[in-house]
Each structure stands twice: as structure tokens, then as C-alpha cells.
């Protein structure tokens, strides 16, 4: 049934308005990062300013920026790889074997997924101090792996379940070793889940700053922590802090444009059959 043209036009008009509302605040962040201090203070509605990379230059020349960038990349990438590896194994184990304690592990994992980070902050600070993990990047990695595992396990669990075990058995009978069964049967079918889980894990590890603020020092700070320290009681240096915010926003933006479908799979997992 075709809809009249005016209804279709209205549909698109509404989508455009919503897209504008979603994107505008993000554009404001980028636009502000390209403005000179005098322009920011002069006239907020003047969009015809001369863009400048001055703020970015100032941020990049900032003491230790490259170090913080390195820290963020290390924590983000290492956490993601370890989470995917451990989470994938656990999801496979949960989906394929029955063993005593399976339900207990499954339910505890599900509940851990929703623990507020503010609740973790205090005990983690104490325990990490005891374990000498404060001010260490590995301390952050351990924490991010632990808080991301529940979501990863449950997302991948759904994907493993969709792969019939008979398929694996058939491949094994045909002479595939366990590694080849994994890489040639399971992996391709789980790829969308793995992509979604990687993006969500990297996003948390890259974006998170409250626990990182508590657990790091001048040497091990991540970018979001460094950005949060730009906000002082005296005021905010908008140009610079927005340049910092824009730089932090770039990797997740790229992921979103490259893998929107997988992200939506991850968002709706468990509730809607995709």
C-alpha cells in the first residue's frame, strides 16, 4: 500500500528534525573547539567565525598529552582484546556444556552487569591499593575487563546458541581440529556479536573517567580524566576543553559510522530478536 506523497514527506521531515536534535549538540562541541577564545566570548549565535586549530595545538602541546593518549589507547585496546577472549570462551562454555553450578554462574553474571560504578569505586580503591594496582594501567585494564565481561558473555552466548552444535560435530567428523572448527565454523557466524561486543567494551574503556580518576595519577591518567581536570572552580577554558572532548569523541564516532548495524544488534540483544 503506497502512502500519499505528503505523508512520506512528513515522515522524512520528522526524521530530519530528530536527526538534527541528536547531532546538534555534538556539532556544537566540534564547532566550539574550532573557535577562538574571543569568538566564544563575543557572540554565541555567530556561526560565521574563522575556524582555528589553535585550541587543538594548545591541547596537543599540553604537557603529557601524548602520554595520556597512549594510556587511553593501551587501556582501551588491551581491555577489549582480553574481554573478548575471556568472554568468548565463557559464552561458549555456558552454551555448550552442562555442569554443576552453571545456573549460579549464569545468574550472578547477569546481576553483575548492572552494578553501579559508584558502588564499585570505594571497595575497588581499597582493594587495588592492597594489590598495588593503583596508578597502574593494568589495574584499570583488570577493572574494565571485569565490568565488561557480563555484557560480552551474554551477547556472545546468544550467538553461540544460534549455531547448531551439529554443525561443529559435522566439521569435527570431517577431520577439522578444534581450532579449525572454531575459526571456520563458529567465528564467521559469531562475527556480528564479536564486533558489537568489541565496540561496547572499547567504548566503556575509552570513555570511562570516574574510576579512572580515582585509580590513576599524573603518569597513568587517561584522556577523559585529563579532560575532566580542565573544569575548575575558576571557570572552563571552553575552546581547549572542547578540543579535548572532540578528540576523545572521534574513535567512537568512527565506530558508529562503520558499524552502526552491529551496535544496534548489541543494543537490542536479549530483548528483540534481530
Amino acid at each position, binding site marked *: 500500500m503506497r502512502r500519499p506523497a505528503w505523508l512520506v514527506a512528513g515522515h522524512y521531515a520528522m526524521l530530519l528534525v530528530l536527526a538534527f536534535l541528536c547531532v546538534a549538540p555534538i556539532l556544537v562541541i566540534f564547532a566550539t573547539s574550532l573557535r577562538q577564545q574571543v569568538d566564544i566570548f563575543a557572540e554565541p549565535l555567530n556561526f560565521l567565525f574563522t575556524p582555528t586549530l589553535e585550541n587543538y595545538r594548545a591541547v596537543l602541546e599540553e604537557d603529557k598529552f601524548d602520554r595520556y593518549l597512549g594510556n587511553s589507547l593501551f587501556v582501551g585496546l588491551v581491555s577489549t582484546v582480553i574481554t573478548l577472549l575471556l568472554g568468548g570462551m565463557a559464552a561458549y562454555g555456558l552454551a555448550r556444556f552442562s555442569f554443576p553450578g552453571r545456573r549460579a554462574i549464569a545468574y550472578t553474571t547477569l546481576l553483575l552487569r548492572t552494578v553501579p560504578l559508584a558502588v564499585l569505586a570505594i571497595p575497588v580503591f581499597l582493594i587495588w591499593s592492597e594489590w598495588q594496582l593503583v596508578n597502574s594501567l593494568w589495574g584499570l585494564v583488570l577493572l574494565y575487563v571485569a565490568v565488561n565481561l557480563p555484557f560480552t558473555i551474554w551477547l556472545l552466548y546468544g550467538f553461540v546458541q544460534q549455531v547448531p552444535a551439529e554443525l561443529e560435530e559435522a566439521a569435527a567428523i570431517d577431520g577439522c581440529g578444534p581450532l579449525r572448527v572454531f575459526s571456520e565454523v563458529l567465528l564467521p557466524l559469531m562475527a556480528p556479536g564479536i564486533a558489537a561486543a568489541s565496540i561496547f567494551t572499547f567504548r566503556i574503556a575509552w570513555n570511562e573517567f570516574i574510576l579512572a580518576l580515582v585509580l590513576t595519577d599524573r603518569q597513568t591518567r587517561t584522556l577523559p580524566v585529563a579532560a575532566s581536570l580542565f573544569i575548575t572552580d575558576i571557570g572552563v577554558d571552553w575552546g581547549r576543553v572542547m578540543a579535548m572532548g572532540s578528540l576523545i569523541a572521534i574513535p567512537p564516532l568512527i565506530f558508529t559510522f562503520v558499524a552502526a548495524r552491529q551496535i544496534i544488534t548489541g*543494543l537490542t540483544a536479549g530483548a528483540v530478536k534481530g
Partner: protein
Amino acid sequence: MSVRTPAWVPALYLGPAVLVMAAACLYPVLSAFQLAGFDWNMGTQWGSARWVGWGNFVTAFSNPRVWSSLWTTLLFAAVCVGAEMVLGIALALALERPVRGMSVFRTLFILPMMIAPIAVGLGWRYLFDAQFGLINAVLQFLGLSAKTWLADPTLAFVAIVVADIWQWTPFVFIMMIAALASVDGSILEAARIDGARWWQQTFLVKLPMVMNVIAITLMMRLIDAFRVLEVIYVLTFGGPGDSTEILSLHIYKTAFVGQELGVAAAISVLLLVVVAALSWGALRLSNPMKGETR
């Protein structure tokens, strides 16, 4: 499926993940309960901590700021989640028809959720800025008076609500679009042929069929609304006064600004209980192991 496997095989697959989660997530959560029984200040040796039993809970619950913070949290969760559900569902009903280019729009809609909370907080803080903010500039352009958004208790609360609605309404929208797409078209067709009007089709046929997804989305949003911290930390830091100090932020401030770790742990036990109750509800609605007999 019941292949007989030796016990060490599943242990091999699950061991590493279980070990990491137990040590770095479950153990800290359980420690929060233990910590809540000790009087312990930041910077002092753990050995010098004094067992005070329920003392921290008494201190916490006799502090009116804890109660006002709990109230702020409940109000924040109710207003945000209520608005997001209504808006998200209404928009999904209006725009459920598949159109060309929808995938581009969906990509743009998920951007607010993907971007760093620190950037979201900063962006909105700038937009709401009394002097340089775009929102005041637009208000003045329209001939309305500028407002001191983040300096006024009520308006600051409005600001954190607006930022949350901006960030999470797309989530409800996307969940609902996916759910509505899975509704069996022939049932709607039958309702239409039977003469059901638009509102009857919507409220008596379509929405009841996606009720499960609505319930799950609501639980997920509620849980997350109680976990929000970072955006508000950047946007208002709980101020002015304690008008936007949600529980998570109150815990953070008590622990790392006030340095009363024991009291903060007691309050975090309260937050944990609220979230655990909600999670239990969510688990009953959407159990990934549902229908398994093992």
C-alpha cells in the same frame, strides 16, 4: 544437548572469565557490605579502621542530604525514564514504516549514546551556560529572557533531565522500531479488515503485542537511570547546593571529597539494593536462559 564431557573442559572455558569477574567485580561488591561496617577515612591505614557495626548506616540515614539525594535520584529516574518511554514509543509509532535511508538516520540516532559522557556533559554545560550558551542566545533571539540555567536549583535539574532525555530517547526509539518490525503483519491486517480504527489498532493490537519489549526497555532504562554519574558530574557536579546530587554522585563526594569511606560504603549498599531489586525484575522479564531445561 547433553554430551558427556569431563568436568575440566567447561572449567577451562569458564575459569578465566569467572576468576576475573569474581576477583574484580563480585569481591569488590561484597566488600562494600563489609566496608560499610567500618569507620575508615581516606589516607589512613586499613588496620586503623574501627568496627562500628551499623554506625555508618545510622550516620548516613540521619543525614538529611542522603534523603534529599535519594529523592533527587527517584525524581530524576521517574521524569527521565517516563519522558523517554513516552517520546520513544510515540516516535516509533509515528515512524515505524520502513523508508529508504532509515539506516542513515538510525546511525545518527545512536551517536548520543556512543559519545563519551565527559563530552556529553561538557557539550550540555556549554549549551546551558548563562553567558555564552547557545540556549540563552536562542531564547534572547526569540525575544525571551535569558536564564541562569545551572545556577538555579530547579533549572539545573531541568538541565540534567534534558541531557539524559537527549542521550537515551533514541535507545527507546530503536528498541521500539525493532519490536514493531517484528509484529506479525497479518494480525494487524485482520484487525483492519474487522474495522478497527487507528487508535484501536495501536493501543489494542500493536502495543500489547510488543508489551514484553516495552517492559524490558523500561527496566533497562530504570537500572541505567540509577547508575548515571558521569554526565551529571561534568554538567553540574550536583549543584547548585545539592539540587542535582543523585545518589551515585553523593557516594562519590562522600568518599573522595568528604573522605568518609565507611559512610559512603553504607550509602552505596542502599543504591546497590535498589538496583539489584530492579535487576531481579529485569531478569524475570528477559532471561536469556528462558526455556532451557538444563
